[in-house]
């Protein structure tokens, strides 16, 4: 599989992070460095004074073409804890009243001498497009593009797994739910396989799996009981009802009957299984409240880790991280 197209644009000639658009094409060493850097920031976020001056004087623009509260907030906190100035711009796009072109928007913001764009967009490829056209000094971080990638979410997920499990070798991970529309799943699959887990499974009805899903490096299951057998990690995905233009499932009720995570089903997994969810949760549709709030859930830790991981990626992309002198 060719990964050069993805890798070329987000790394500098010396292999450092320049943009962070997708996990595809990034090495295990680089992903590990992101996690190690995040580990050093995890301490900062727990301190009384939660700031480090690494990005002082830099301006980060949260450029959101699609609504999001959680992701934007964690990016904003991450930038502020690195002492950057943050500008939030929400551009509601509607096909009918399309004003200036995306490129014009970017050019205008560039003219204000900003240093980083954090981009969320409803269309796959948006972050790549912007990265290809921005001024050379600007870094682009993908905060979710269409169905394509959400690499910081994937990094905070693997960071959470590493903290809980100590590593990746031998792990079996099941990703359950709407894989078809999920940028989170695509990025997680890249990250987990790059970090060397034993097996990544995807569990969903065929309507919610992309074509040739095996080519992504996963084993597909249509039966949750089978898919959960002996797994170490379960990642539940949100049923993205707002993205479903036509019939993918007959009803939420039937979906929960077949693919909802319950205590009983979770017994199939290993006893020390952890349960993850990128949020926001649809309780009673994809996951039982008892599990979401129970001892095996690491859902809130994921949120906390999100800030440290985003601080790590931001500082590395601006070449201001603690690893400044270490070649990748």
């Amino acid at each position, binding site marked *: 599989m060719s990964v050069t*197209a*993805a890798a070329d644009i987000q790394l500098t000639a010396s292999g450092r992070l320049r943009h962070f658009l997708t996990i595809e094409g990034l090495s295990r060493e680089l992903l590990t460095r992101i996690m190690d850097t995040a580990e050093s920031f995890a301490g900062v976020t727990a301190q009384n004074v939660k700031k480090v001056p690494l990005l002082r004087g830099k301006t980060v623009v949260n450029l959101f073409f699609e609504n999001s509260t959680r992701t934007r907030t964690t990016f904003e906190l991450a930038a502020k804890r690195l002492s950057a100035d943050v500008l939030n711009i929400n551009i509601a796009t509607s096909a009918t009243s399309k004003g200036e*072109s*995306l*490129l014009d928007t970017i050019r205008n913001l560039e003219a204000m001498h900003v240093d980083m764009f954090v981009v969320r967009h409803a*269309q*796959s490829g948006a972050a790549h497009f912007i990265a290809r056209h921005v001024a050379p000094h600007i870094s682009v971080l993908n905060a979710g593009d269409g169905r*394509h990638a959400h690499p910081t979410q994937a990094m905070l997920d693997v960071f959470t797994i590493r903290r809980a499990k100590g590593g990746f070798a031998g792990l079996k991970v099941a990703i359950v739910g709407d894989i078809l529309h999920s940028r989170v799943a695509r990025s997680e699959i890249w990250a987990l396989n790059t970090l060397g887990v034993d097996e990544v499974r995807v569990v969903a009805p065929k309507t919610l799996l992309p*074509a040739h899903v095996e080519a992504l490096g996963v084993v597909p299951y249509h039966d949750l009981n089978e898919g959960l057998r002996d797994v170490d990690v379960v990642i539940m995905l949100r049923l993205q009802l707002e993205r479903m*233009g036509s019939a993918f499932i007959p009803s939420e009720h039937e979906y929960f009957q077949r693919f909802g995570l319950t205590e009983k089903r979770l017994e199939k997994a290993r006893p020390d299984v952890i349960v993850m969810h990128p949020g926001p949760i649809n309780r009673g549709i994809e996951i039982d409240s008892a599990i979401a709030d129970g001892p095996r859930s690491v859902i809130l830790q994921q949120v906390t880790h999100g800030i440290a991981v985003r601080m790590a990626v931001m500082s590395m992309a601006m070449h201001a991280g603690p690893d400044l002198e270490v070649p990748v």
Partner: protein
Amino acid sequence: MSGPRVLIEGGRIVDPASGFDGTGVVCVADGVIVGVGSRPDGFEADHRIDAGGRIVCPGFIDLCARLREPGQEHKGTIVSEGAAAVAGGITTLCCPPDTTPVIDTPAVVKLVTERAEQAGKVRVLPIGALTRSLNGKDLSEMHALKRAGCLALSNADRPLANLLVLRRALEYAASFGLVVVFRPEEPWLCSQGCVHEGAVGSRLGLPGIPETAETVAVAQALPLIEQTGVRAHFGQLSSGRAVEMVAEARARGVHVSADVAVHHLHLTESSVDGFDALCHSRPPFRTTADRDALLAAVADGRISAVCSDHQPHEPDAKLDVFPETEPGLSSLQTLLPLMYALVAEGRLPLSAAIARLTVGPAAILGLESGRLAPGAPADVCVFDPAAVWVPAEGGWVSAGRNTPFWERALTGRVTATLVGGRLVYPGETAS
């Protein structure tokens, strides 16, 4: 009718219609071919074209090229794209009816053909609309379109309301011997797709157009074509399976033919990797197996024509996030080099390559051109099979620069094009 007497000498003449392949002269007088191989008695030329080291063949007939006029002149005009066509060795082209206004009345047919005549380069054959305004519901005035000069009708990329409309349209078109051109694509199965539904599209998270969008449309149309007895043509097939279905029907005696766009013989789903909007195409580029099956069908004649599927765009049409960009490639000038690349790689015999660009499409529309026979229109292409050139500023004629082959070296360059015995490329200033 009068025209200059032209002698094309020293070239290798390849005329698949007659099977002639050898060195000799081609003589032209009064707009028609008067001699092939040897000079008729008493022929004196006003103008000589030295074709030494070059290939002399019939001018190419392109079954699908958008000129963008009327209605989208910011993308291209009959003048600009006509000049690009003859620079690519194309002497006749068919333009689909999805202009603004739609080619659904004799007035619009006349507008296009008259502007093409004024431009004085390529012969333009407008394809008429199958339904009024391409609305998919009301039949166009097909007989009037035929009288205005349309040989074929199509609904371009627009869907028909239902299969009863299709049946009636085919019956009515069959009554007047009109060819109906399909761009088979089942609209519901395409959904919001913009790339081939397969491994690459899944990885990039780009909504897919499944192979079945094409095969289901072909499967729906074939029994109605057979029932109505209409002469039908499937344009720009993208999947090996659809080619098999058309070939199977043809073998049973159904009046069907098929073409493929030349870039579909080269590019695959992998071309869109990295979100390359220049490879955003409709139909999408599919798997390597599909590409190889298309090429095999071109080689053995199950696909009897290769077209440019030329779609020039202004730069902004491709400067956006991939799904928001407009599909299509500017491809009049890459038709020959991309075909010749297959010959040079030993994947396609030269005579077959030229046949699919000349006598093949001529037979689909019942044209006299596409051959180098005495009495045939003197539409001739002379090209240098060894010349390497780079699509770039200067050598590019089309208003649309939207090609993934931009600044990539191509082999095979047209050196002279004659339409009706007149040298239309290179222009007077350049020759």
